């Protein structure tokens, strides 16, 4: 007698403790009167037990933890000072300080962290802006106020931030204004305009003018960044749209800026 497929499925579920109480009773009864089925169950149990011995395999190498922390370190590093307010339990505080310790440890010898530090010096603001942009993307909406009307978006920033950017709608050029939000960059609330290009979101952050340099910035974790200045402000755009489109967007935006006298 061969055992049919459904019975084998039931037998597996029985072994895994996944049958309902009544199904379990029914299977107990069958096992008692069908010796072949009982043999199958024994076989199943031994292969399962043997598999459990083999499956753990090798543990993760120690360096995995350090390299994972280094790769997300860019995000983590930004607001280490926030940590003091956050941990409600000593447990989390310990875990968090272990993380910082590991990051610190990796920094001594680790190339990854070395390059991070260089980037930190070169573009801490850009990193923060990219982080805020990515965070906005995982939220249900990348903006707090939805509007394609610059006369709505611009006044919305009043009282929320002291920076008054221009908020041009470039829909006719393929970059539609979709809304605005306020991000915390360098510990200060700053206005961010969001634009849509095909299916991509572009976040334009306005800051009090920092330096005169403009142009493309090296991409950060695959997010392209470009910045320009005008009207006493520095604008930094971050998006996964391709660099050519992003540069075109920056050019259009700059043309809307008030001309210096």
């Amino acid at each position, binding site marked *: 007698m*061969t*055992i049919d*497929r459904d019975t*084998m*499925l039931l*037998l*597996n*579920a029985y072994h*895994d403790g*996944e049958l309902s109480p009544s199904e379990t009773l029914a299977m107990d009864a069958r096992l008692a009167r069908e010796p072949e089925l009982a*043999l199958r169950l*024994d*076989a*199943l149990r*031994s*292969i*399962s037990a*043997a*598999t*459990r*011995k*083999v*499956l*753990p*395999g*090798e*543990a*993760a*190498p120690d360096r*995995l*933890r350090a*390299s*994972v922390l280094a*790769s*997300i370190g860019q*995000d*983590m590093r*930004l*607001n280490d000072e*926030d*940590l003091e*307010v*956050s*941990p409600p339990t000593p*447990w*989390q505080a310990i*875990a*968090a300080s*272990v*993380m910082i310790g590991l990051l610190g440890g990796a920094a001594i010898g680790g190339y990854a962290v070395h390059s991070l530090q260089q980037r930190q010096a070169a573009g801490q603001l850009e990193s923060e802006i990219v*982080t805020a942009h*990515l*965070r906005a993307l*995982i*939220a249900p909406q990348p903006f707090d106020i939805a509007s394609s009307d610059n006369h709505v978006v611009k006044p919305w920033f009043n009282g929320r931030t002291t920076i008054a950017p221009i908020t041009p709608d470039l829909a006719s050029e393929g970059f539609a204004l979709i809304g605005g939000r306020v991000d915390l960059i360098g510990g200060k609330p700053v206005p961010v305009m969001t634009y849509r290009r095909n299916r991509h979101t572009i976040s334009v952050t306005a800051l009090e003018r920092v330096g005169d340099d403009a142009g493309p910035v090296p991409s950060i974790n695959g997010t392209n960044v470009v910045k320009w200045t005008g009207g006493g402000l520095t604008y930094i755009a971050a998006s996964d749209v391709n660099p050519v489109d992003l540069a075109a967007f920056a050019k259009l935006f700059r043309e809307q800026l008030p001309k210096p006298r």
Partner: protein
Amino acid sequence: MTALAKARFARIVLPRLDEGYRLAHWLTGSPTDAEDVMQEACLRAYRAIESLVESNARAWFLTIVRNTSYSWLERHRPSKLTSIEDLSEDTRWEIENGASAAANETPEDILIAKHQATALQQAIEMLPVHLKETLILREYHDLSYREIAEVSAIPIGTVMSRLAKARHILAMLVREERP
């Protein structure tokens, strides 16, 4: 909100690195590939962690590792994704089930001695990746059928048939290995 992300990452993901790595290792079949997958999976987890509703964080993280493993395999090792399930399921089952029933196995046939652990390990490595996935989530991660269904995005019925099939193939392969 970064403080929240950090605290959650430390509490939810870091303690599960090893567990995730072992799943990625089995699915990709290589320790270095598994490290790559884990890098990517952790970054994905970190970016999504603020929006996580913490009902089953473990299944959530394993799902990310599982999905990252598959997209990684698609990009770098597409040949490993050819699946036994491309064959008709019933045909496959009959072949396997018929063959083993004829062999009339006893528990002694299946009892795995120490020197057979290697054979079993090789047998697991030879399993099609979908079967391997279900087997590992059950026998190593000890997830319930419902949790496996959630992580692998398949119906519970498929969990049951994959698991039965995987164990069955292992039993056969190991028996063939015996002298």
